[in-house]
Structure formats: C-alpha cells, structure tokens
C-alpha cells in the first residue's frame, strides 16, 4: 500500500508589518538606554561611560518604553488580503503587546492597541519587576483577529485570537549568560585518550552532538576562576560553534518541536544577527546544494564576528593578557 502525504497549507499571515523600537529607562539614576537597530540590547554590565557600568540587579525594576511604527510601504489596508472581503482591518484586528521572560515564565500585562491609532508617536510603557525575570526578557507583539468570522475561506483565519501577523521581537539581556556547558550545548568529561577535546555524534541528524573534554582536565575545566581555562574555552568556542553550525545546516533534520533544536536556532540567530526564519530557510534548502554551502559560508562569517562582539571578546582577551602580563 502506498503512502500519500496530504499537505494542508496553514492560513495566510503577514509578518513584520509593524516595527517595534524603544528604550529602557531607570528612573532612580535618571538613565535611558536605547534598544539598538538589531533589536538586541545587552544590559548586563552595560557601559554607561569608560569606567562606569550599569548593573541591572542593583535596581528593583526597569521601565521599558516601546514605540510602534508601520514599516515603510505598509499600512492598515495591507491586512485586507488576509481578511474576508467585507471586513475592515481596523474593526477586526488589533495589536497585542506584552513583555515576557521565557526563563521564569513571567509575563507583563498585555496592551491591546487599535490598529488605526498606531502612529510614530504611539508609546507604550511597561514596568518590569526584576525579581520576576532572569537572563533575557522579550518584547513580543502580535496582530490578532478579534472577531470570529464565518468559516468560508480555507486560507483566511476566522477564529478569534488567530495570529495574523507577528512582529520581530526586541530582546533585552539582564544577566550574564553562560552558554557553553549551560542550557544550549551539551559538554561533559569523557575518556578520549590523548585528546583534550572531542566532538561526538556529528553524524546523528536528530540529537545535538556532544562536546567531550578529557577526564584528566575535569578538575580544572569545572573551575571558573582560572584565566588559562577561560582563555582555552574562549579560543575553542569558535571551533565548537562552527561545528555546531555545520551540523545544524548540513546534517540536522530540524524539528522545531524539539527543545534542543529550537535552542540552537535561537543561539545562532542571536550570534549571527539573522532572523530565525532566515536561518531555518538555509537549513531547509537541499542538503549540500551550492546555495546552501554559500549561505553557510556567509552565516559562518557572521557567527565569527557576532561571537566576538556579543561576548565582548576583545575586552575579555585584553583582561586575560593584562593578568598574564602582571
């Protein structure tokens, strides 16, 4: 008996029509920090000036001010194509904005905005209690259908609260994130002979490869107070992450319901400063086709630079050199 796959297309959506921007305000020290164009702000040890760093955990709360703007060439009538003919987007749709923390599962109140009121002067304020959040917070926004419609057209969403458009998130890092050996990459000691490090499982398309380090090095590599350990990890990180990138693009059978696969997409999307959708599109190309290989080279180069910039690699390296020179 043959097997037939009947593909059911999801309903039409129209993403990234409204652009979020904003700033973080800390009233007790009268400080405002803008969220950069790449939508990612690292507040952890944010340098206010040469010698002054902002430490979020020294404060009880943050205020986040969000601006909303229609992207160039888009307007409210853009949504006509994903509504029924007789429907008016201003009456049927609304924008919902909230701030959330995946780590602690905290979520702010949700603000519902009438689409017809969105102008570049629209400003939303959120108070973030720092005792409720950890690592990252994300500003997320969706345009939802607010009114149930007749279920007549297959590719038009008619259930109330269907998400017809997702805005690109803003991400704000609050705490230091220890990624290697932490929540993303599996790293553990192992018996690997004369090798100091090894990667195993690179041929398995389903499970993340594992980084192994020699058992003999365990007593040192589990300490975070040794500059030689930090230097080794910093250096090896480029290779490890590039191997993971190759695995993700060329070997992995991506399953976005798998939390490990999802984490690695998040990781590379962050470091390479490309959207998850773009990265997934690269992964889903025919394996090893010339376009995929070219895309890999491009993403790999972005990873090399992003890794240095986001981890403040130059500064870390300089500190290590200074310690060694003393």
């Amino acid at each position, binding site marked *: 008996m043959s097997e037939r796959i009947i593909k059911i297309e999801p309903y039409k*959506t129209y993403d990234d029509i409204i652009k979020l921007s904003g700033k973080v305000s800390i009233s007790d020290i009268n400080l405002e920090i803008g969220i950069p164009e790449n939508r990612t702000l690292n507040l952890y040890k944010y340098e206010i000036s040469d010698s002054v760093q902002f430490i979020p955990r020294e404060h009880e709360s943050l205020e986040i001010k969000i601006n909303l703007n229609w992207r160039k060439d888009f307007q409210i009538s853009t949504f006509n194509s994903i509504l029924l003919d007789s429907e008016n987007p201003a009456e049927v749709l609304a924008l919902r904005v909230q701030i959330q923390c995946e780590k602690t*599962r905290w979520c702010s109140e949700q603000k519902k905005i009438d689409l017809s009121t969105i102008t570049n002067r629209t400003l939303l304020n959120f108070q973030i209690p720092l005792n409720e*959040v950890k690592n990252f917070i994300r500003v997320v926004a969706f345009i939802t259908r607010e009114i149930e419609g007749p279920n007549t057209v297959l590719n038009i969403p008619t259930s109330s609260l269907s*998400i017809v458009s997702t805005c690109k998130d803003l991400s704000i890092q609050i705490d230091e994130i220890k990624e290697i050996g932490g929540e993303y990459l599996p790293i553990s000691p192992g018996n690997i002979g004369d090798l100091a490090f090894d990667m195993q499982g690179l041929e398995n398309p389903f499970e993340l490869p594992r980084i192994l380090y020699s058992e003999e090095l365990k007593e040192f590599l589990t300490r975070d107070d040794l500059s030689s350990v930090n230097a080794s990890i910093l250096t090896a990180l480029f290779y490890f992450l590039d191997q993971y990138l190759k695995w993700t693009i060329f070997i992995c059978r991506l399953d976005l319901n798998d939390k490990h696969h999802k984490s690695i997409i998040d990781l590379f999307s962050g470091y390479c400063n490309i959207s998850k959708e773009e990265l997934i599109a690269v992964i889903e190309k025919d394996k090893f086709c010339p376009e995929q290989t070219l895309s890999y080279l491009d993403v790999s180069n972005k990873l090399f630079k992003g890794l240095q910039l986001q981890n403040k690699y130059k500064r870390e390296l300089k500190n290590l050199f200074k310690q060694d020179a003393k």
Partner: protein
Amino acid sequence: MKKYSNGIDFFKNYLTPKRDEPLTWNTFNTKNQIKLISTIDSLPGVNVEGEISQTEIEIILQIKQEIELLKSTYTEVSPDRLDIDLAIIFHRNLKKLRWGRFQIEDYGMWRWLSINFFLTEVFWRWGEDEFQKRKYYESSKSCYDRLIGERSRRLFPLRYFITGERLYDTHFGYSLLEKLAEKSREERSGGFGNLFNNLTETKLISPNEYTSKTMSKILLTGNKLASNNDVQYAFVRYNAYRRRLLNYASESIFEREICLFNS
C-alpha cells in the same frame, strides 16, 4: 540562603540509587535527616556557598510545622491528595522572604533547602508507600528525585512554590488553590498529578498566569473532574494552538477548544 555550587552531575555521580543494591543503598530511606546531611557533606568536592539567616530558618520551621499540622488533620487522606495544600504552605511562607520567580532557577539553593530540611516530608509524600510494600529501590528513587532533583523543577519545595506562583492571584489570593485543595482532598479521582506536572514544567506564558488559572479552574474545580489523561490532552491541545494567542480568551473558548472533557 545557602546553596550547593556543585551541579546536578556531581550529585548524580555519587547518589543515584542502584536497582541491584536497594538495601545497602539507603541514604534516602533512613528518615534520619542528620545522617543524610552528614553523608552529603562528606562527599569529596561538595561545596556549599552563602549563609542562612535567622528569618529564613524561622520560615522553614514554620513550613515544617504547618506540614505536620496538615498530616495530623487529614490522617485519612493519602499524601498525594494533599499536594495543593503543600503548594499553599510553601508559597505563602516563602513569599514572606520576598522570593519571586528570579529564585526559581537557583536550583543549587532549592537542592540545599530540600536536602537539609525536608527528608521526613519527602519520605512521607513520595517514599513511604513504596517502602511499606518493600519496593526499596522505587522508594529510594522517588526520594532521590525530590531531594536531589534530576529534573530540577521536581525538587520538593520548588515544585510546590512554582505551583503557588502559577495559581496565586494578587486580587483573589489563594482562593483558586483552596478550592483545588478541597476538591483534591475530597475526591478520589481527578488529574491533579498531571496538573502539577504541567504547571511546573510547561512554558504557559500569559499575563497574570491567566492560562494556568483558567485551565486549572475549568479542569478541576467543577462538578466532574478531568482525569489525568484529560488534563494531559488539554495541555497538549493548548501547546498545539501556537497560531492563536489565547492569553485572554474567554473561558468558553477554553471549554470548547482546549479543556475538552465530559463535564
């Protein structure tokens, strides 16, 4: 508060119960808190950081006292039917320390708290039944899971604190939890176990925990209670609805589309 700076792998290496030696391995079956602490404190490389304050000690002792009272009040009720009461006890007391969700991820602290204070309670809730049936390995494994927490969110005090965080309401206080506790104690059925598992381990992000509260209310406070399977499928359905934002969906939408059971 004190905490272990060793990760879970450290504890796994030394303490995972072995099926082939359930009787020789009895660290978690001794009911002897002091022996347990001294066993763990003498593990080579174990490291404890921080200090515990007098207020923290008083709160912990208060929790223990309230659990004793709960046990003596409901002697006829099986311990697993008292989970919601435990969530109220842990949450109400630990909130006095102004703990919030930031503390939830500090597993080293919860592990220390669990091991150093709650052996008796863990054994009563998770190990005693199996021990009486001479299933020594299962009993040890259950206690180990709750004291050491191979799945971190299952650490004994943490599991209850998280559930409290999910269902406590700044406006209505503990009323939903109290209603659930009453149902759980009175009925012999109902998927309270799966409700706990899903509240502690699934993402469910919504303002003021609207989703957790609505689903708990619909599934387990009505005249007929959802079974463990009903609860499980309701959360599966919720997770499958990724293209809808149900954060403020009305109860009728949850009843019609998510929490489907024969109520």
